[in-house]
């Protein structure tokens, strides 16, 4: 899946997606990150041909969208912006309808496939219940079941774990791994950075409509430089010693000094502190989480950018 200069300007002038060049390698599990309102769902809508880009192109499974949508989309499972169903129908009836809408879907195995999809998302017992009576998490699971009705080459999931309980989140994680193991490419937007660290091979970060970062998760992690954290009552002395040894970016808090040790050998630093009579209450090397990298890329502000 490749996008080139993908841009969406809504009526009213807001540029929700701005010159986005995504490259999702076949076989990857691709985490699509970004704060609320950063343009993830808008990008996904353009990927699937639901809205027309103002500029730029989308290639899905090697074919141009939306031109080739009727031949490409049967090979793509999609969940866009939360679950949407006929509340007056059962979960099973909903699945059957969306499968019937795909002319390439085999009608003879439809019921069977629906049963399997429901089982995979743990909804077998609620299959005959009206969707009106489903909880949020059950609807979300049903939406995932829609994407799983057929064997897909690509899954595009917009916040698939939204509203799921811990078991459900775990199941989805395992499911994504399992599907990827079978060769399905998975493109998923999410706010759960721990999930990205655990399952994704690649990640991209959106901020205010722009793609600010795109790389493998391994590369992202490698760039996160570990920080040395020294817990001590002798703050000034510790900082002075570390600085003398070449530790940079030193910061002090109430009872810790922390800094970037670079390539310096950690054991030597500890020995030097002890030699300098710094009372060590703690000495740790912490690898920052993806969350910190994310905040560094997208800014600290809590307010939704407009």
């Amino acid at each position: 899946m490749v996008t080139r200069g993908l841009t969406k300007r809504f009526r009213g002038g807001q540029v929700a997606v701005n010159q986005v060049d995504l490259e999702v390698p076949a076989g990857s599990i691709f985490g699509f990150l970004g704060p609320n309102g950063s343009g993830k769902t808008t990008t996904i809508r353009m990927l699937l041909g639901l809205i027309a880009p103002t500029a730029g192109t989308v290639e899905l499974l090697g074919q141009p969208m939306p031109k080739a949508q009727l031949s490409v989309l049967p090979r793509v499972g999609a969940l866009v912006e939360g679950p949407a169903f006929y509340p007056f129908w059962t979960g099973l009836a909903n699945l059957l309808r969306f499968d019937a809408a795909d002319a390439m879907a085999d009608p003879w195995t439809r019921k069977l496939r629906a049963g399997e999809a429901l089982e995979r998302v743990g909804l077998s017992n609620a299959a005959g219940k009206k969707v009106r009576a489903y909880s949020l998490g059950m609807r979300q699971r049903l939406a995932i079941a829609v994407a799983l009705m057929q064997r897909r080459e690509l899954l595009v999931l917009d916040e698939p774990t939204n509203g799921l309980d811990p078991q459900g989140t775990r199941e989805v994680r395992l499911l994504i791994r399992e599907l990827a193991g079978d060769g399905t490419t998975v493109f998923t937007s999410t706010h759960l950075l721990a999930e990205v660290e655990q399952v994704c091979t690649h990640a991209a970060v959106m901020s205010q409509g722009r793609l600010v970062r795109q790389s493998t998760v391994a590369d992202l992690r490698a760039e996160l430089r570990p920080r040395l954290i020294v817990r001590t009552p002798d703050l000034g002395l510790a900082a002075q010693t570390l600085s003398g040894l070449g530790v940079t970016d030193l910061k002090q808090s109430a009872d810790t000094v922390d800094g970037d040790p670079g390539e310096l050998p950690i054991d030597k630093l500890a020995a030097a502190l002890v030699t300098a009579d710094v009372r060590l209450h703690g000495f740790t090397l912490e690898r920052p989480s993806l969350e910190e990298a994310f905040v560094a890329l997208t800014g600290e502000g809590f307010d939704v950018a407009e």
Partner: protein
Amino acid sequence: MSAEVMEVGGGSSPSTAVARGRHGTALFWSELHLVFGRARTWVLLGVLAVVPVIVGVAIRLSGSEGDAQGFLGQVAGNGFFLIVASLALSLPFFLPTAVTVISGESLAGEASLGTLRNLLTAPAGRSRLLAAKMVALAVFCLAATLTVWLAGLIAGFVLFPVGDVVLLSGSTVSLADGLVRALGIAVLIAASLIGLAAIGLFVSSLTSTPLAAMAATFSAFIVSGILGAIPQIDVIHPWLLMYGWTSFADLLRDPPYWDEIVRNLLMQGAYLAVFYAAAWARLTSRDING
């Protein structure tokens, strides 16, 4: 598109068997299921079925023929005419209301539920989805008039004597012949509703609020009626949606008088073509944000 073989993957479970070719009709059946699988649809049909019963019981209880003109005046003498009278009485209000509700819901309902995006990513194909919606609307129009026909038949036979039918042209035909002609009338009236259904479909493609679509469609119907009632603008009357709606009665002549019937069918076809094309232009270019 040619029939393609789609590899659905290996493995032993039945769902991973190889699916072949296209199954384009499934969506059409699914649309019918959507329209006729809803309580609302059956309430509308139920109301239509009640029309002949109320008319029949009222005439029966009054015990006289009164000075009713036309079909109503003949009901007490021959229950057959309850069918025709009920169809004629449903035409100005009940039938258009039912068609307005169902057609206004068609696309706007999907948009408001968000199911439109599931259908389009399935992918249903926008043109094909629109065709399925229109076909389902046409089937509903027919189901509505056949409901009145059947309810009129049952109520007419239960409440009144039945027998040979005296046509408008004065000649007499057998009851069976009459019933077939009444069936033809039901089909013609269903066809008369197609133009309105197409307007509803178009309006429904404009909005994500089903109620707004219904209100707008019904307003278009009312405005058309008002224009038809203003004699000063009678030059435009022949082009109004309802101008040929009463042409069905010409089927009760011997031989039937086809001119007005054919003209009405052509008019409905023209309304269908225009508003279906407009709905298509709208749906195929619309951003699906819901």
